[in-house]
């Protein structure tokens, strides 16, 4: 995530690509548990748990 040079202005794509990815992951998590039980529930916890973990890690920086 830290590739961009410190003072270069980032493009819209560069700004939004990570949020997009994180939110797609969360969306998979939200939908998965609705589709089935067992494996689907587990997938849901994994995806949504990852986004929550990312958030807590970033807040603790």
């Amino acid at each position, binding site marked *: *995530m830290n590739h961009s040079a410190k003072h270069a202005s980032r493009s819209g794509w560069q700004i939004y690509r*990570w949020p997009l990815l994180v939110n*797609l992951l969360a969306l998979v998590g939200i939908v998965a548990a*609705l589709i089935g039980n067992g494996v689907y529930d587990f997938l849901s916890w994994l995806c949504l748990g990852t986004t*929550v973990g990312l958030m807590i890690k970033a807040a603790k920086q």
Partner: protein
Amino acid sequence: MALSGKAMHRWYLIHKWTSLICTIFMLMLCLTGLPLIFHEEINQLTRAPEITDLSGRASTGAADLDAMALIAKAEKPGWQLMFLTWDKDSPLINAVLGPTMKAGEGDVHFVPFDRRSGEQLNAPPPNEGVMYFLLDLHASLLMGLPGALFLGLMGVIFTLSVISGVVVYAPLMRRLPFATVRQTMSRRIKWLDLHNMIGMVTLAWVSVVSITGIVLTLVTPITAIWQQEQIASLKLTYGDAAQSDPADPVSPGQVLERVLTAVPDAELYFMSMPGSPYATPHHYAMGMRGNTPLTEHMVKIALVEAATGKLISIKDTPWYISAINLSIPLHFGDYGGLPLKILWAILNIAAIIVLGSGLYLWIVRRNKTREKRLQSLQAQLTTENPS
């Protein structure tokens, strides 16, 4: 995303004003919503009926159902039986009585039964107590339909605030990698970074919960529309003959028997009496859940003519009713076990932090602008009166 400075300022104003309007209500929704995520667990601990283990007993036959209806009606003379509802995870049937067929949820009386023995159970009514109060506050500000519609409007304004928040995120992040929380002495910058980071990471969740919430504020009008459509289409097919008031309507037990003959493995959900919501004035409506995880939130409706007991149709509900039924789990997060509920609760707390930090950032900025104005005013005064 290269918006001009002027356009960006406009987006900033949208973000500021939409947020200011809805923040107080959104905070209330988050705070009341937090315990509601765990409504099953809390109700199980505090208000569950005592059900003795009768495993192995057969489920209710038609005769039992009619007996239940009689016992329930005797408890509230003059009231009408509106619904019979089947619990999903326990052998519980609730008879729901109202002073009128259109009574609201707060005014009805519940009589619980064990579906295996037909025995009446002792349980605190589900429309009383702290959890019901929280739900009523959360869903309608304790003000019924007008309150619900008002909260729906707040939800729409909140959605605008979220969208504008995503737009004004870009200029702030031109020189910062994603999820940076700058370690500076400035408390404002730290909270700005946290507001941006948490707001952005929880975007999908917040959108799902607010959109499903808006849908749920429209349950009453949407149900009324559906009922009108059903009545109209039945009139079209059967003419006015099917619309006459039945002098001697069939009993709920007979309706159950008729439906079970057609669908032996039906997952019973509710039976709506003629004249109550979800039915028509001249038909019983029997709701059935799907048998798979994906369809268990969807409902099939069997319509049975009250005068003759004839099974008219078994149909999937239209898309807008399915939208409501899917919105309930997606809003409350109670569809993927306890881990999902815990994640839902953490995300709810994250939303509270975003709301709170947004309010803080507005106050700090406001004080700053005020200071600046004061300073420029003082400067103006000193240049005007040099002494």
